[in-house]
């Protein structure tokens, strides 16, 4: 048998079947489609939908792993406990602060990097491209350690290098208070994820029609005018996709905080709060409720983006 599981020849035509009329062929095509995509679809549901449903269920119980006998149904009480606790609002505030700062800086910086890359001379382009992938590919924990050790009061070089800046001296303890701790966390996050944004923006930049640029140039537009009137509007889709992905990613910040401060000095993020409740304190009920709230926040942000900014992800990548 040389015939394997390949689709029969008549199905190899490009997809252009007219809608409406369901022939035998399109019926079998549907069947094959689901047969092929089904397993991946089911696995995705299995590893996300099932856990979040389980979490929702467990969030309705007062349940501590060390004390399973006293597990009891408490309804929405866990949510009330969390929402009336300053810890939650503190963590949410920190998370939002980190998200807003990092995403804003990354967008501007990433656009700068994309501009340079698009103009970089052929001779150094491969070097720049390889370099820009390094922060993206490096493990977040490694990046967090690198930045922590750099600013650390004992091992770091930052204090001795930047002693000329007012307020920085040999015994500046960056991880001693909330503000400076968050600053270093943001720096590490920005360093690690800006390259990814810049690659997305670079792809968007490449899609701006060259003719428009030329036309604007001929009409005497300045560099700034061409940038704001031609380039940026034409890459709106790419900017929005980068913004949406990074915002949701930044909102889940966990690794850097775990490594750098362990949540000390009020630097706990929402993800960290959920982790601490469940894994460290074994408060399954409360931890699940925090997880559900985090999930709802992410859904809310995504919905705001898609409705508010009209980000059409499907059309942004040519999916119709």
């Amino acid at each position, binding site marked *: 048998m*040389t015939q394997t599981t*390949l689709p029969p020849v008549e199905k190899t035509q490009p997809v252009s079947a007219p809608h409406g009329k369901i022939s035998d062929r399109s019926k079998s095509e549907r069947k094959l489609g689901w047969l092929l*995509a089904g397993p991946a679809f089911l*696995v995705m549901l299995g590893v996300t939908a099932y856990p979040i449903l389980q979490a929702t269920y467990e969030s309705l119980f007062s349940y501590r792993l060390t004390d399973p006998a006293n597990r009891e149904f408490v309804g929405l009480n866990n949510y009330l406990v969390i929402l009336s606790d300053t810890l939650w609002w503190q963590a949410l505030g920190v998370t939002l602060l980190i998200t807003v700062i990092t995403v804003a800086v990354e967008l501007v910086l990433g656009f700068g990097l994309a501009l340079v890359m698009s103009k970089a001379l052929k001779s150094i382009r491969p070097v720049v491209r*390889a370099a820009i992938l*390094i922060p993206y590919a490096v493990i977040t924990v490694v990046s967090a350690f*690198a930045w922590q050790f750099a600013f650390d009061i004992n*091992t770091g070089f930052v204090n001795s290098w930047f002693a000329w800046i007012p307020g920085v001296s*040999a015994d500046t303890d960056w991880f001693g208070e909330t503000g400076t701790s968050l600053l270093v966390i943001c720096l590490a996050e920005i360093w690690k994820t800006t390259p990814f944004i810049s690659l997305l923006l670079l792809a968007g930049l490449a899609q701006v029609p060259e003719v428009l640029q030329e036309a604007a140039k001929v009409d005497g537009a300045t560099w700034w005018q061409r940038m704001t009137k031609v380039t940026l509007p034409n890459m709106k889709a790419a900017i929005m996709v980068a913004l949406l992905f990074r915002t949701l990613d930044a909102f889940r910040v966990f690794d850097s905080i*775990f490594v750098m401060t362990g949540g000390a000095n009020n630097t706990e993020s929402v993800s960290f709060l959920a982790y601490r409740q469940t894994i460290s304190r074994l408060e399954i009920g409360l931890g699940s409720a925090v997880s559900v709230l985090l999930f709802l926040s992410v859904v809310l942000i995504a919905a705001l983006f898609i409705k508010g900014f009209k980000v059409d992800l499907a059309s942004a990548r040519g999916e119709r």
Partner: protein
Amino acid sequence: MSRKEKIWWWIGGVAIVVYCLFPIGWIVALSFKSAGDLNSGDFLPNGAVLDNYSLILTGNASDLFLPALVNSFGICLIATAISCLLSMFAAYAIARLDFPGKKLVLSTALVVAIFPVISIVTPLFNVWRQIGLYDTWPGLIIPYLSLTLPISIWTMSAFFREIPWEMEQAAQVDGATTWQAFRKVIVPLAAPGVFTTAIIAFFIAWNDFVYGISLTSTENARPVPAALGLFSGASQFEDPTGAIAAAAVIVTIPVVVLVLLFQRRIVAGLTNGAVKG
């Protein structure tokens, strides 16, 4: 471009390279410092030594680090292989077949991609304990699929969409059998996309910290990032900084090698999946 402009863009390029490599250079420098040199406040070591590397590779800390390295490689490679296999079928269906639900599969992948990992960990922590998957390889491979599968489906379907599938028929018209047409025409065209997707999926699995730290408790399954996060020195009184730096350098080597070898493909894969029209 004028000569002056050229110089400015060149300086910009060099600035990017410095920006990207500086923290890595720092952790490498740190990893070669001797115990007495760690707190010198200098960037470069005063006399490079291999103490930290021997500590984690053959010394006291090796029974923490080496099993974690094996776990990381094993778990990430298996998770990458599974998600590549599953998404190969899915991406083929999305790129070539007309079936309702195509959009559903893609949007599900998107939703899963933005899912907060910690929301999955909390329930799994409890369930895994009950069914014996806690602190095992499968106990990490399964949740890793939530990280690798969505991006694999998106990236691969973007690649598959660009394959000139008509060539398969052309080969058949020229007398090739279905199998030959598939082997000699379609496989070579699809392979780069599959390969690139595998690299990106591997990066993402390799980077995981939340699952690794929450769903393991011993060296049975603990991957490197989690081991690093929990590293507190061979003894209580030993400063773990040097050992962490050396371990950080070692886990960074594989990704740097992949980046250097396949940079062009990785960039294409990352941007294709997200914005390419």
